[in-house]
């Protein structure tokens, strides 16, 4: 069954016409249909920003929370009910700026969930300031002399923090992106896809054409379990930018290491007054 219509949301889309987010939304619907995850079995958690509005435009359960905190909320939900299929939609500012600390620790924890970073290298919702991924020298109204910090490299950071599935995608290549999302969701652990996505309103540098001129697809038949190669690929952000799975390796998943969760999701346990009474008495 691959009926994409079942993910259609009746809620009016609020993105600008031509926004790169549409490609990501389409790829998500396609991937979810391919994976046969029905809307009622899907939880999307997001922060703040245009990327974070994604779940409104897709039929699903969602918690559209606050700036940068989506990964923490997703972790809490997963601890409570580890049967949940969780996708997190975040932007470059949301994930790497406001939520930078949580991103680092999410990669360390390796909780089974998929993070899609909509990376347009600019702050869109707040109308055009530099983001953590904006290139050095990029000028904006708020950075009139140009950005003077190095851009943050999400995939490289995720790799150094121990993430077991790191990919880079491009919203302009929906089919390829759908494949990446499917692989990421199927990965048992924390999977992250940094997705380049043109901001048609505020980013005059990294346009769709700019990306198209540089992006090339990695050979999917190759094993990508070598850290050194992955780092080299992750740092290839100049004239040629690889998209595809940069690294995938089996790692110890977070939930599976928590002894108390072996018996199944916490929310399915029944309150047991007798056991509680005994434990309380002995503990005092």
């Amino acid at each position: 069954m691959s009926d994409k219509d079942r993910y259609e949301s009746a809620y009016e889309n609020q993105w600008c016409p031509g926004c790169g987010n549409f490609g990501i939304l389409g790829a998500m619907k396609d991937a979810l249909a391919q994976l046969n995850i029905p809307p009622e079995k899907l939880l999307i958690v997001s922060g703040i920003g245009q990327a974070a509005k994604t779940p409104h435009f897709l039929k699903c359960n969602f918690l559209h929370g606050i700036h940068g905190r989506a990964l923490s909320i997703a972790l809490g939900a997963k601890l409570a009910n580890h049967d949940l299929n969780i996708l997190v939609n975040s932007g470059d500012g949301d994930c790497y700026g406001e939520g930078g600390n949580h991103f680092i620790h999410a990669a360390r924890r390796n909780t089974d969930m998929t993070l899609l970073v909509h990376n347009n290298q600019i702050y869109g919702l707040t109308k055009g300031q530099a983001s953590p991924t904006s290139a050095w020298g990029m000028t904006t109204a708020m950075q009139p002399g140009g950005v003077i910090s190095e851009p943050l490299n999400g995939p490289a950071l995720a790799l150094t923090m121990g993430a077991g599935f790191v990919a880079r995608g491009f919203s302009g290549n929906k089919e390829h992106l759908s494949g990446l999302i499917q692989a990421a969701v199927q990965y048992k652990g924390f999977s992250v896809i940094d997705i380049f996505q043109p901001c048609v309103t505020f980013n005059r540098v990294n346009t769709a054409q700019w990306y198209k001129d540089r992006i090339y697809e990695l050979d999917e038949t190759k094993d990508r379990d070598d850290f050194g190669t992955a780092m080299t690929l992750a740092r290839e952000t100049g004239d040629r930018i690889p998209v595809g799975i940069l690294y995938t390796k089996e790692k110890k998943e977070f939930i599976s290491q928590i002894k108390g969760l072996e018996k199944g999701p916490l929310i399915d346990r029944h309150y047991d007054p007798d056991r509680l009474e005994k434990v309380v008495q002995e503990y005092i």
Partner: protein
Amino acid sequence: MDITILIGGAAGQGIQTIGTLLSAACCKAGYFAMAVNDFESRVRGGHSFFKIRISNAPVYASRESVDLLIALDKNTWEIHSPSLRDNSVVLADEDFSSSGRIVPLAFEQLAKETGSNLFINTVAAAAGLRVLGAGPATVQSTIKDHFSGLKEDLLEKNLDAAQKGFEKVADVLFEEQPLAHPSVPKGNLISGAKAIALGAAAADCRIGAFYPMSPATSIMQHLTDLSKRLDIVVEQAEDEIAAANIVIGASFAGARAMTATSGGGFCLMTEALGLAGMTETPMVIVNAMRPGPSTGLPTRTAQGDLRFAIHASHDDFPRFVFAPGTPTQAFEQTRKAFYLSEKYQVPAIILADQYLLDSLFLLEKPFFIDKHVERFIVTDDDMPDPGGYERFAVTDSGISPRALPCKGKALVKVSSDEHRPDGHITEDIAIRNTMMEKRRAKLPAMIEELDGPETVSPDAHTLLIGWGSSAGAIKEATDLLRDQGADIGCLLFSQIWPFPATAAEKMLKNNPDTQFIAVEMNAEAQFAGILKENTNINFSGYVLKYDGRPFTAQFIVDALKEKELA
């Protein structure tokens, strides 16, 4: 009998072990006891002390004067000798002065004879036990009980050290000999931190998330200990922001969850508090108050975060605030916080403090465990049309049916932006107003859930008004002054917000001539201000303290007399 024992020394000398041992022995011998733990924010050195009060009658606060001083260093003698009475006994590691009441006891040397100066605490504890009237068998059994987890050879060495301490104080006569006259134990000693963790467990809390911060960490340590035997998972988050959001995520998915922090951490959590308010997600936060602003006095106590707790985060939304005064209240109000937070889908804050959390109190009645925990969650079966489920459906009570994500056909859609009943973002003026009114519609029922203050002689001419953990000292001060003939009573609040105005006003308006005096551990009489806003009563005076050390009854009595208020 009402005696106070003070054990002092440098951090790392085992002050707490000695204190815990002595207080446990007195408790086991059938006495009432309470103990405060006073320490600096450092791991080694400095000055720490543990002060135990032992009495035939219930005690809820510490006293100023000291009857038995165990000084492991000279510093302790210098700081605490002014608190000694004429008949007090001092066990000291050195002969600090020519004072006849000092019993020189070479703790360190005796410990080294046993093998290591690590045994100082055992030597001192055994000496203390004997001075309090314990025989050799009691000393041995107390040491054995306390060190039951140790390896055989280490236990032997501790017993040896105890024997040395015991023998050295053979001739010391202490006027009270509580351990020589044991009776039936009145209960167990328990800290406020343990009581809160147990209250959470009793509320069926499943998830704890935290970032370490004194004095809240001990709550999460107890919850972690309990997680070994109950369906609880505790996660140490990367910061307080993450901890609070983990709680919201867990609660959203259906598990009762909590976090505990102190003022500085609570600052970071206020963003999440607003998220819980807007998304109507239950969450329980313990704010373990300590003096501020900023890092303040990390290991000291205060009641300075009341206004902050009530107003934290932007714009208006309903929340509960509790301020338990005893371990029993801490247990019951923690359980109540979880219950009410879930019932009304609002955050609940428990204001504890270092004094409540780190002190030991005698628990006379066992905690009551519910046979059934009521949940407030709906499933597809409860809905005529699960496909049309609306998480924020408008109701008269303001409470919308709460379904869990991925548990049925009903899709749960939640947004931190203002939203329509179906959870999608909106900027529509009418819906904004409706949603704001829906959330606030819960307030009248929420107020009715809260109990009014505990009272002592509420018809008296002068009424002391207090809240939270100062209750013990205020009650004792009231008793002391009544014994001296003063027409005084007290009102002690522990269920603070939304302000239980109806319950409070009944007690406050008894007599138009009543003189109200606020007794609080903050500089601006925060609770008095809240009371004035909500009841129009006026205060005649204030007893305020913000030095980080807890109230004693004597302090309150002296302050009232100095201000000619009693």
